[in-house]
């Protein structure tokens, strides 16, 4: 079974209240060195068999059409999961 990993982030100019909340909590735990936090989304799409060029093309289309909203978000990467990455089914 193959997996496609899709990362989506809010556009830099869009306010990220969730990231700000996390950023506000870090210093309370002693993490003083981080100046900003932006929170995004990762999708892992599974297919039977290999991740072919066609599968990646379909994943890109799904990412643009449903998984992200182009008004506020960027699809920052669509890629096959590396063999040494953890399989989400295990």
């Amino acid at each position, binding site marked *: 079974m193959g997996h496609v990993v899709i990362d989506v982030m809010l556009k830099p100019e869009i*306010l990220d*209240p969730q990231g*700000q909340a996390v950023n506000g909590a870090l210093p309370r735990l002693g993490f003083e060195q981080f100046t900003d936090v932006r929170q995004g989304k990762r999708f892992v799409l599974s297919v039977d068999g290999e991740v072919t060029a066609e599968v990646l093309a379909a994943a890109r289309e799904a990412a643009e059409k*449903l998984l992200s*909203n182009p*008004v506020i978000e960027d699809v920052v990467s669509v890629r096959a999961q590396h063999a040494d990455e953890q399989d989400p089914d295990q």
Partner: protein
Amino acid sequence: MKVGVVTFPGSLDDRDAARAVRAVGGEAVSLWHGDADLRGVDAVILPGGFSYGDYLRCGAIARFAPVMGEIIERSRGGMPVLGICNGFQVLCESHLLPGALIRNDHRKFNCVDTRLRVENAGTAWTSDFEAGQEVTVVLKNGEGGFVADQRTLDELEGEGRVVFRYVVPDGGKNPNGSYRDIAGIANDRGNIVGLMPHPEHCVEEGYGPSLDGLPFFTSVLKQVVSA
């Protein structure tokens, strides 16, 4: 005078929207998200709530519900459509209206009476208001911050498509971080309107801060009669 009200999984305010339609003498027709059938309605309301649990993004999954295909097509042909709160989010996700709604800048859920200024009394849903009129309508949202890029905001303002603005006291902030205090917008034709506040909760004595929601529903009935 049939006004359809769509029920998605997770819609909350569909009953109130239907009640508001009936309060002004219209016939409310329930539309089911899974049926690609508008049952002969003349206008449609997309109600408030949390369709599909707000999963992925608010309105993102509802936008692809079977009922939406015909709503999108007929609204492009001029059918009046009003999106309230989650309905506004669905309209933005459908790209029938520009921009998007994101989490409130202060990160808290809001449940407040809000003062709004009517900026455009020429839409299908606001013709019974007067431009510049101020009204009080309830607002309840967690992700109601209206955002768009500068060019889109300039276009909306330049074309008179900002329909409602939050009235903000000097030095104050609007209730959700919306850019340029925008509470509601319309498409260029004025038949599609979306707003975060809830006019359907302001149509009966004893149930809200005002009766200022009534003109939304009387306006569209006139549209439908004259159409």
